[in-house]
């Protein structure tokens, strides 16, 4: 349980550990895509952590990365085929970024740092926490970008009618700017909290 909470904010993979930046920048132009991406990664993370944790006794040190990659690639392919069959539009929109989950460093980092050393339950908790933390971070970025770029949130109109869309937010520079600002704000808040903690007792 502690592991679960750990992944969401204190060690949020995107905002604190700055891992998995490629999908973070690429698929956060709208929220639907971000949620799909986040959940797909969570699923892969959950399954790979489960398998790695179960198989950790059999892992050969020099073969472990190979084993991780086989497990991750298998589940990513499953997700990809599922999306193509049941959510065709979304899979078109996310394009190569679903197969690219294979090389998402959050997943391999958790397999290496956590699942290959912990029991099943903690690694599952860790996977869920990290996955949801990833999804949350993507959603925050995507909300900012979609509201500014289209004036909508989950395709619902939230800005006034005469609002002029900020095209830059749809493009890569907008992603980098938003990402930098959100990480900055997150760090600022954390520092404030820590200052308060250290001054109280």
């Amino acid at each position, binding site marked *: 349980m502690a592991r679960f909470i750990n992944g969401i904010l204190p060690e949020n993979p995107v905002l604190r550990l700055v891992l998995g930046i490629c999908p973070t920048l690429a698929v956060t132009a709208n929220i639907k895509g971000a949620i799909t991406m986040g959940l797909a990664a969570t699923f892969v993370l959950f399954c790979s952590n489960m398998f790695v944790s179960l198989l950790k006794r059999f892992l050969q040190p020099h073969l472990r990365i190979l084993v991780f990659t086989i497990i991750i690639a298998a589940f990513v392919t499953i997700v990809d085929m599922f999306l193509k069959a049941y959510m065709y539009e979304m899979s078109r929109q996310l394009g190569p970024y679903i197969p690219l989950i294979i090389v998402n460093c959050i997943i391999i980092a958790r397999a290496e740092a956590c699942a290959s050393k912990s029991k099943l339950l903690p690694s599952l908790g860790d996977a869920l926490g990290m996955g949801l933390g990833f999804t949350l971070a993507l959603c925050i970025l995507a909300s900012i970008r979609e509201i500014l770029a289209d004036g909508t949130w989950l395709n619902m109109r939230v800005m006034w009618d005469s609002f*002029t869309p*900020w*095209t*830059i*937010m749809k493009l890569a*520079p907008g992603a980098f*700017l938003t990402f930098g600002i959100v990480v900055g704000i997150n760090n600022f808040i954390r520092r404030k909290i820590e200052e308060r903690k250290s001054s109280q007792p």
Partner: protein
Amino acid sequence: MAQENKLQVGPSPHVRAELGTSRMMLDVIIALIPVTVAAAVLFRWETLRVPLLCVATCIITELIFNLCQKKPNSLNDFSAVITGLILAFSVPPTLPSFACVIGSVVAVGIGKMIFGGLGSNIFNPAMVGRAFLMICFGQMMTTWNAPAVNNAAGIYATTKATPLAAAKFIESDEKKALQEVSKAEYEKSLEVRSGQQAVINDLFLGRVGGSLGETSGLAILIGGVYLLLRKTISYQIPLGMIGSILIIAGVGYYISPQNVMHPLGQLLAGGAMFGAFFIATDPVSSPLSSKGRWMFGIGLGTLVMVIRIFSGYPEGVMFAVLIMNAVAPLLDRWTVAKPLGAKTK
């Protein structure tokens, strides 16, 4: 540190140097007065809302950032005012107010304060703001109105394209179609391209469509010469930039007058003059050594011409400045001045 101890202050009397940051910045503001007057005359008084809004927003943004970062108030170096003015003069006079505000916030906030305030910024803040607006609100940033003075005179009253855009107008495959649609416009763009006297005069006085402060070559020249005389800006950057634009445009015009505008037209149209005197000379984001400044200026002029001739954009001063800003630290390192008496390799 040992090094510091060697710096010794001699006995009085000291020579007082007036040239501080705020003094330099004040000079720039004074030099911008003719441009402001030209803008007011050419585009009517209402358009002064753009500089006023930009300057006000820049000042407020700097104040807020200073408060958040718990830094001492840095407004008295006037750099925020200048960023606001330069941004305002490089956008179309019709730019909606909210876009002015956003551009100014980005210019000062992201272009300067996030890097650590004046002196630490890599890019020219005003150009960061302008680039943001250009990508965000492309349509607004490329909608040009003919100056108001022309409505009475009847020259170019209907034309909205800037001279650069007009010169870029014809490409061989659409020549015929254009001639069919509007003969007058076709002839006009030929006229602009070949650099006829009347067109050059209009460009020099600023009676053409364009950015608020960039149209009048005369006003910019007055301000620029003042800055040069006051030694607020060094002559290398403007000279290098203008020289290379003239040379490249001259060669291009000689080789293929079909595709390249007349050199004088190239110089006076768009933001080249304004860029050379006011934007590129920003002391923070340009090189320090004399050699580096020459290279900076020549690089700028070359990039401007490359973008104007070969890219999809009619104007390239903004991108040229941003690219060269990024190169400036390298130029500095490359051309670092040898300390007196140092060994040469």
